[in-house]
């Protein structure tokens, strides 16, 4: 019996690996990832996992032309405004956008110009804390939030947004308080068109002045758009199963362009890499998410293509320090005091603590071992793919002596004497971020036996909620460009109203001043100088720790056709704009 069993196992082992030339399920495309989405409401979602679904289900006014991050094509709009075609006024403050006709939503109702106007207004007015609304509030009304520092809604918001977004016949007219060069790029990725009537029927904002306050900064799950979608895009959201962490998209056969070649798209979260890899090998997945350290396990497998050196417009991973931690129901801060069993809530407001951490990180080791030599150490928040990047910016070096010097000075010597204990978090399944946490833990704990750091993997949506609530003392995340402009890195990473500083509770007027000045500056060389100043200040203050300017790779079955990498797409290069894809 033993011999029979042994022979059977050996025989099975000798079988060739699956290298099928024809795809297993020609009309079905399956993408296996590690993160479930946060919400599919385009006015709420501000993470890549959610953005991937939105990209394929909804449509904004414009789209990027193939791999270009500069050239735009009309999508819902009929033309891309320019000064040449007269759709941008000579003073650069009025944009007239003619809209395409004959487009229908997934439920069959026709899309109107009023739907477009309402969608833009909703995107501006929902303005959830640390959400995407600031992307359009800034250019269209000149301020990044509908609420003041006291959290109260500003009285003039309604008039301002209605002045900024109007209809002239079937054209949308946008009036800006001042010229804003990246506006069209923003409109190529954000504020897609939603159906106003469907929203009203399902309990969302009806467009009226009287009710909009109720929908400002809402709870995530209160909107019908949270888990349902009715867009104009090439795919319909059939189902989001939160139990199995799976999205099912089906082809929109009434799409206004030719229908997609794929009939069904499955986006599924599978946390175990071994399972993802086996499903790719077996042909049950067409592409999978895999971090840089895993590339050697995916190369040279018959039937599988690894496309390396894909450019990115991102800063990832970044270690963020929370200056004022939210203590309420917070298990990440230990005792909440500097007593060796916890940290005080403003522990990271001390610059020496942050610098201690910065010098305790082994950048070279991380680049060599985790990134497999791909990429370079980041010199500031603005990546090298964008203007404004300062290649000569100062960087931290791994130096445990310097780290110790800073920790000895921190909190008047109390931090060194009493020690501390807290938890660093990263989103589960993300290997580079996990390694960043482990390197920090190992090196900082080695400095003083009284320093204790726990590392905890947290599921993506839970992680987002904890981070938004400012409950994470130190967390590792990244920033993927919303539009290709340095302001989109400077603002969310360093401005007090930006996505990260707002949750870190980091506020420095000098940072804000420089960012606002750079954004208003139209002379590229002067703008670059301001950004260089900003990045010098970033080094000095160290509100976060940028690590690597990276390139990425994509793994897919070789029967996948039509994929192109636009680094602006959410979840690029793993996720896809599925419309162009097909399988042999």
């Amino acid at each position, binding site marked *: 019996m033993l011999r029979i069993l042994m022979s059977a196992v050996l025989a099975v082992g000798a079988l060739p690996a699956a290298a099928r030339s024809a795809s297993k399920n020609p009309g079905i495309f399956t993408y296996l990832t590690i993160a479930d989405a946060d919400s599919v409401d385009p006015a709420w979602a501000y993470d890549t996992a959610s953005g991937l679904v939105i990209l394929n289900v909804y449509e904004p006014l414009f789209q990027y032309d193939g791999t270009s991050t500069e050239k735009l094509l009309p999508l819902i709009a009929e033309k891309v405004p320019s000064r040449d075609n007269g759709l941008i006024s000579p003073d650069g403050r009025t944009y007239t956008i003619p809209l395409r006709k004959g487009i229908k939503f997934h439920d069959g109702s026709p899309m109107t110009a009023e739907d477009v106007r309402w969608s833009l207004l909703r995107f501006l007015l929902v303005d959830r804390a640390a959400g995407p609304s600031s992307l359009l509030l800034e250019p269209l009304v000149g301020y990044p939030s509908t609420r003041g520092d006291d959290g109260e809604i500003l009285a003039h918001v309604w008039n301002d947004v209605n002045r900024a977004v109007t209809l002239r016949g079937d054209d949308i007219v946008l009036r800006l308080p001042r010229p804003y060069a990246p506006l069209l790029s923003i409109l190529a990725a954000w504020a897609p068109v939603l159906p106003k009537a469907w929203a009203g029927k399902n309990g969302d904002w009806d467009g009226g002045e009287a009710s909009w306050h109720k929908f400002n900064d809402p709870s995530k799950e209160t909107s019908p758009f949270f888990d349902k979608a009715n867009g104009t895009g090439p795919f319909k959201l059939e189902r989001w199963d*939160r139990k199995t962490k799976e999205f099912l998209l089906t082809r929109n056969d009434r799409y206004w362009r030719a229908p997609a070649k794929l009939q069904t798209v499955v986006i599924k979260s599978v946390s175990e890499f071994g399972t993802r890899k086996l499903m790719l*090998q077996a042909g049950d997945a067409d592409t999978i998410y895999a971090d840089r350290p895993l590339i050697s396990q995916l190369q040279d497998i018959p039937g599988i293509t690894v496309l390396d050196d894909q450019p990115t417009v991102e800063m990832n991973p970044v270690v963020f320090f929370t200056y004022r931690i939210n203590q309420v129901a917070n298990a990440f801060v230990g005792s909440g005091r500097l007593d060796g069993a916890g940290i005080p809530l403003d522990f990271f407001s001390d610059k020496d603590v942050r610098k201690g951490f910065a010098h305790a990180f082994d950048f070279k080791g991380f680049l060599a071992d985790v990134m497999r030599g791909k990429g370079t150490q980041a010199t500031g928040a603005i990546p090298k793919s964008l203007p404004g990047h300062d290649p000569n910016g100062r960087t931290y070096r791994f130096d445990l002596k310097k780290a110790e010097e800073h920790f000895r000075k921190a909190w008047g010597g109390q931090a060194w004497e009493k020690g501390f204990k807290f938890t660093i978090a990263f989103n589960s399944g993300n290997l580079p971020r996990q390694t960043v946490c482990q390197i920090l833990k190992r090196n900082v704990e080695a400095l003083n036996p009284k320093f204790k750091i726990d590392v905890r993997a947290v599921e993506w949506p839970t992680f987002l909620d904890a981070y938004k609530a400012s409950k994470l003392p130190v967390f590792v995340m990244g920033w993927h460009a919303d539009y290709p402009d340095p302001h989109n890195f400077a603002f969310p990473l360093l401005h007090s109203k930006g996505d990260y500083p707002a949750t870190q509770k980091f506020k420095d007027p000098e940072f804000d001043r420089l960012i606002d000045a750079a954004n208003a500056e139209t002379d590229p060389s002067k703008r670059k100088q301001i950004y260089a100043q900003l990045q010098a200040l970033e080094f000095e203050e160290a509100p976060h720790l940028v690590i690597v300017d990276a390139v990425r790779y994509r793994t897919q079955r070789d029967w996948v056709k039509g994929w192109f990498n636009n680094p602006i797409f959410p979840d690029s290069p793993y996720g896809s704009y599925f419309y162009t894809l097909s399988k042999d």
Partner: protein
Amino acid sequence: MLRYILKRLAFLPLVVFGVTALLFLCLQFLSPEMRASLYIKDPRQLSQIESVIEKYGLRKPMPVQYALWLKEVAHGELGYSETAKMPVSEAIRAFFPATFELTLISFIPIMITGIYFGVLSAVHRDKFIDHFTRFVAITGYSLPSFVLGLLLLMVFYGKLHWLPPGRYTLETDMLVHAEGFRHWTGILTFDCLLNGEWAAYVDVVKHMLLPAATLLYISVALLLRITRSSMLEELSKDYVRTARAKGLPENVVIYKHALANALIPVVTLASLLFIGLLGGVVITETVFDFPGIGRWGVQAAQQLDVPGVLGATMLAAFLFVTANLASDILYAVVDPRIRVGD
């Protein structure tokens, strides 16, 4: 027998009180704010934490808090699980049926294999079959489940394309979510049968075979060893010698006389095994991407999702109490001395 069962049932409220009191005491190590967060769904509600503390009486004397908490638990109000992104009671309803199915499909083969080979091993002591079964048992016991799971996946899925991971294929997914499909029991295999969907039934079972095989291999070892040692002890007793001397067929001696007496420790182990499987088999569920209660419970623990952990613990405690009662009753069935003594 009935008296014995009733007596055991009478103990049940006492056990439930003990379990809930223990869980409640564990909760008291958390601050009122942390306990209030059990009921919070949206992180922005944290600013109104005082009103939640007030609503649930979290600063009241401990006995009052306990009574209020029990009332909430009795109404199924176990809080909101951040990990599952749904209320705990809903999460249990969502994840438990998958684990229950996996338990059912694994447990019976585990019992049959464990007992059969345990007996075989004892009867053929120090022969090839004894050495072989012990070897298989020891490797199963010492092999980490994720290694075995991945190995099985590599062979039966990666190479042979027979048994895929996950819960079901896309076709079954579409079918079970279609309007016409009625979820009679919440247990997918049963529901597929009740809806007359044979292909879907086969598909669901196919997806459970590898996790079930993993569980079988890693769980059978202990059962096999206990059955073997218990059988060896019984086989050396006088009544077995007497039975053989009377000329009873060997099968009758082994299976009717010796095995019946050897089953008492096996029943205890089987009930613990059953609870263990029902409580969720974390690694197996993770490797096979099987959306069960174990994977959720561990994710909840990793992410400091207190309501999730509490819900999973309550479920495990409830299962333990129930299985314990069942094993007490089974004792009485297999060993008349117990019911007579009572």
